[in-house]
């Protein structure tokens, strides 16, 4: 016989696992529905238990029932927190992807339609925020810059890029000495590798 909160606990375990993954695991739609259903059932129980009292329930006169009500209330709130934690973990992950420059179309197909909307809208929000700092790429590297120029090796064909020293054709396995600022995006996307 499953206990109150068992399902919520499962969600939290999923969330915990998600934190350590690089990709987004499939959305637990069934589990989310069950936890929400548990909350509605508990709420119905509470309502039907309180009904005969017509709002004049005295906890000290019915201690056993007061205890049941308290447990029900706590279970509902706990379930809510579990659901919030699960969804927040996923949105955090999605935001991380938006920050690192992924497009909604490049994401794996593990997110729900709702999450896809969220990514799109968060992407817009971030773009608007970034737009206020035109001269500073907010999504750029958070490593302190040491050298202006770096050696890079091309891992995947990336086509031609324009730099202030002319165009460079990035073909696989070639090496270049380029300005870090010009290729940062390509390194983040895995086209280039920085050589030490």
């Amino acid at each position, binding site marked *: 016989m499953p206990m109150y909160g068992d399902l919520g606990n499962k969600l939290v375990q999923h969330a915990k696992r998600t934190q350590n993954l690089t990709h987004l695991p499939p959305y637990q739609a069934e589990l989310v529905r069950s936890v*929400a259903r548990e*909350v509605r059932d508990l709420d119905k129980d509470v309502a039907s238990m309180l009904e005969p009292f017509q709002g004049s329930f005295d906890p000290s006169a019915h201690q056993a029932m007061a205890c049941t009500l308290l447990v029900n209330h706590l279970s509902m*709130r706990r379930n*809510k927190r579990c659901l919030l934690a699960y969804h927040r973990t996923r949105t955090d992950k999605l935001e991380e992807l938006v920050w690192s420059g992924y497009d909604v179309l490049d994401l794996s197909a593990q997110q*729900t339609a709702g999450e896809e909307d969220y990514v799109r809208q968060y992407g817009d929000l971030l773009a608007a925020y970034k737009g206020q700092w035109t*001269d500073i790429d907010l999504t750029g590297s958070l490593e302190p810059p040491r050298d*202006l120029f770096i050696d890079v090796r091309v891992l995947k064909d990336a086509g031609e890029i324009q730099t202030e020293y002319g165009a460079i054709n990035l073909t696989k396995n070639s090496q270049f000495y380029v300005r870090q*600022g010009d290729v940062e995006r390509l390194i983040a996307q895995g086209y280039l590798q920085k050589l030490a």
Partner: protein
Amino acid sequence: MDIDDILREVDPTYHVVPRERRDLQDLTRAWVAERSAPELLHWPAGGLFERIHDNIKRQIEKVEEMTGDMDPKTNFALIVIQTELERFRYLVRSYIRARIAKIDRHALHYLSTDELRSRLSEMELAYATRHQALLHDHYLASFLSSFPPPLQNLNDTAGNITMIDAPDLESAVFIRLLKDTLVEGRGVDADGAMDGRESDIVILRWSDAKPLIDAGSAELV
């Protein structure tokens, strides 16, 4: 982290007037403080960021102007300026990102009172409000709308447990004293106090360090 390096970069020979050097110092201080403090600090007043933004823009223009020149001397200067520019950009980026990370983590907390709201810049306020609205919509669409109405709020305080998470103000920070002052700290078993000397480095709870920082007697390191 070579802050000294960065400060040295702003060599007087690049006709930097003291105001700009002070701005860089303020920026570096704000950046270090923001990264070590457990809670969000005030957005710097007095148009610091507007000035820095203008400086960066000016340097970018200068770089563009100088790029066409093939003279080796200009070329060398160009590299120095570009390096400086990259470092400036890094400082600003890292500072803003540190703030956004804190705001994202405890958005409802920072939006909850006027005192806390005043710490955010206008842009950050707009960002935090919109982000929170997006999250709320997402929760509603995913599960919250099927909840009984009394349970749909995100800021319940029922049973003396608030749903709004707040940063831990009791976590430890390192501070450097800028003048001789009495340092008081609360401990687990007993409270302690010491006569601090200038340039002493002390570790204590953020809640105890904050008055010293606000009074200008110490800085975060």
